[in-house]
């Protein structure tokens, strides 16, 4: 290994380390100290300076060389500026304590400078060819995907670790008591299952019907465009708007009840069912239909006997994915279908229910006021497990189905 390469690698390492330290100090809200901060920036500046002669010789475009000079200058400037920045800067007059600004400034400087310096190290390592840009870009993109997966992974692991111990037989089968602090969640579990069952009964026929019309009877034209736009708007409609719609239309008719909630959830899941069913019907080859017509079958016979049976798994996938959404939604049912206290397992369609997401909402509101911690974590875990389980089932079904065609 040439000394130039070793030095470049060292700069990349140093830059990444600085970024990590920056993240660490932001996450732990501590300041790493003037001396250490200065040392890091000075080290970085010196290393960049040492690389300058080689870089000048190697760089065909002098622009990349100028960048390295600028980076070196900036790290020396930061070494001087950041530790000597007055601790009371900026937002002091507002709601944030000024003495904390120091760690914020220092970690911001580290998190920004680190990766930039590291990317500067790639230039000499790859002799300033286009592969230098590629390598540093790839590093940044890899970091992006890690940064995406990290918080999501954190949420899931946090809920699993805290929630799993709370899942007991008693928890699953007992009634809610003492604002959810004791007892179980049996009514909520049953309510959610009934709700998504009924939602499926409403969304399935409507969704398939719409998909058949869009794919088999009318593929283009103004009406089809309008229908598609409507489906898209429906898909984007915020769940709280669905909830208010239910409050204005269904609650006067059916009261706060299982039926009102299921109707709203049916409308909410309709676009997902339509989209997935359309995809399934579209994937049936045209030749099969033509074969059926050639035998004298009518369009409806062709759809019923030839198109639908092979498309059915795809359609079911859509329903499963839609139910995954319905199982987790709170806003549409909070004014239309649920009570927290007093709701039991419903005896009829017109009884109010209890549902897991709403139960979790109430427990979150009681957080700190009543000792609901363990039951809240367990409810969150159960809800997450049900929703992710349904979705995982849907996605696996779909992948398998896609491979077939």
């Amino acid at each position, binding site marked *: 290994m040439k000394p130039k390469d070793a030095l470049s690698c060292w700069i990349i390492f140093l830059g990444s380390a600085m970024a990590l330290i920056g993240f660490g100090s*932001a996450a732990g*809200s501590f300041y790493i100290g003037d001396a250490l901060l200065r040392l890091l920036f000075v080290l970085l500046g010196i290393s960049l300076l040492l690389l300058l002669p080689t870089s000048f010789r190697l760089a065909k475009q002098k622009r990349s060389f100028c960048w390295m000079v600028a980076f070196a200058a900036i790290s020396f400037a930061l070494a001087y500026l950041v530790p000597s920045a007055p601790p009371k800067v900026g*937002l002091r007059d*507002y*709601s*944030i*304590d000024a003495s*904390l600004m120091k760690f914020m400034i220092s970690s911001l400087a580290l998190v920004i400078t680190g990766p930039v310096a590291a990317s500067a190290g790639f230039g000499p390592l790859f002799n300033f060819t*286009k*592969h230098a*840009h*590629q390598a540093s*870009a*790839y590093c940044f*993109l890899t970091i*992006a*995907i890690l940064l*995406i997966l990290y*918080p*999501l992974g954190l*949420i899931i692991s*946090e809920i699993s670790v805290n929630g799993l111990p709370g899942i007991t037989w008693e928890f699953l089968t007992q009634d809610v008591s003492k604002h959810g602090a004791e007892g179980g969640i049996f009514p909520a579990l049953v309510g959610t299952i009934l709700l998504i069952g009924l939602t499926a009964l409403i969304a399935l026929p409507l969704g398939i019907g*719409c998909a058949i*019309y869009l794919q088999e*009877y*009318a593929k283009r034209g103004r009406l089809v465009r309008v*229908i598609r*736009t*409507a*489906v*898209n*708007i*429906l898909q*984007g409609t*915020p*769940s*709280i*708007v669905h*909830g*208010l*719609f239910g409050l*204005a239309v269904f609650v006067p008719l059916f009261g706060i009840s299982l039926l009102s909630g299921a109707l709203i959830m049916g*409308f909410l899941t*309709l676009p997902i069912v*339509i989209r997935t069913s359309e995809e399934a019907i579209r994937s049936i080859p045209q030749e099969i239909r033509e074969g059926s017509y050639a035998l004298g079958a*009518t*369009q*409806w016979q062709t759809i019923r006997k030839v198109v639908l049976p092979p498309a059915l798994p795809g359609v079911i996938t859509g329903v499963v994915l839609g139910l*995954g*959404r319905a199982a987790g939604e*709170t*806003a549409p049912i909070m*004014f239309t279908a649920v009570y927290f206290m007093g709701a039991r397992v419903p005896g009829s369609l017109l009884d109010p229910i209890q549902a897991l997401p709403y139960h979790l*909402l109430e427990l*979150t509101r009681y*957080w700190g006021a009543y000792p609901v911690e363990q039951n*809240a974590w367990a409810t*969150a875990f159960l*809800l997450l497990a049900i929703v992710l389980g349904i*979705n995982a089932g849907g996605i696996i079904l779909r992948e398998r189905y896609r491979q077939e065609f």
Partner: protein
Amino acid sequence: MRLGRNTKEILIKNMFLGVAALSILIILFIFIFLFKEAFPAFREMGLSLFTSDWSASQGKFGINAAVFGSVAVTGIAMLIAVPLGIGGAIFLSEISPPRLRVFLKPVIELLAGIPSIVYGFIGVTVFVPYLAKTFDMLSGYSLLTGGIILGIMALPTIVSISDDALKAVPREIKEASLALGASKWETIKLVTFPSAISGVTAGCIMGIGRAIGETMAVMLVVGSVMRIPSPSFDVFETGSTITALIAGQMGEAWGMHTSVLFATAVILFLIVALLSVASDLLQARVEKKFRGG
């Protein structure tokens, strides 16, 4: 009576047409009924809805603070989610090894399904105490907290749709670029990404729509105080959003108060519908571009 073959076919076709038209009807009904409930507010309050003075007990209903909160929270969320999401999508579609992609793509789709109440719960139990400690805030409930949670929530949507857009770029274009001697990164930067830009934008717009309309996650962490922070860039303050306002107050509202909440829902619905149509048009453009009409 036996129906003729043709009559039966026409009947069935019309039945399906009816079912398909139902989605148009639902959208119309949502708008009509929301507007009907909101009408008294629009008639009585008129433009005085758009003031900053909210006090339900004194009959003052200025919703500016909620609109401001929605915009601020969505803005913070997009600052987090757009750059990260696009980076993640490029990684997923262009440079991840196929085996990793086969694993990651469904995982990210799965994460898009985490219910919003779970984000809200995690927000209250983890983020709020953490931010309160880190920034030494009074409570940790703030517009910033809402924005961060929304940003994390919007990530999977943006990654998933942008990834689809990048994957839709035909292989021939990329191969032509590589054959001309461009590196893989140059191809991504100068060929693939520019071709996919309308699809990626559509993904981001959908992310914005989802963030504005999100209720549970935001309501629990923004503090639900109807006040514009002063100075307005102070996102460490508590605030409220349109959705938090509706979900938080509908339970105890009556009369004009209810009507005003419906009016804010009408405004929200119109904003999100516009965003949906915009993202739709962009996606239609993508299809036209690559499928030759």
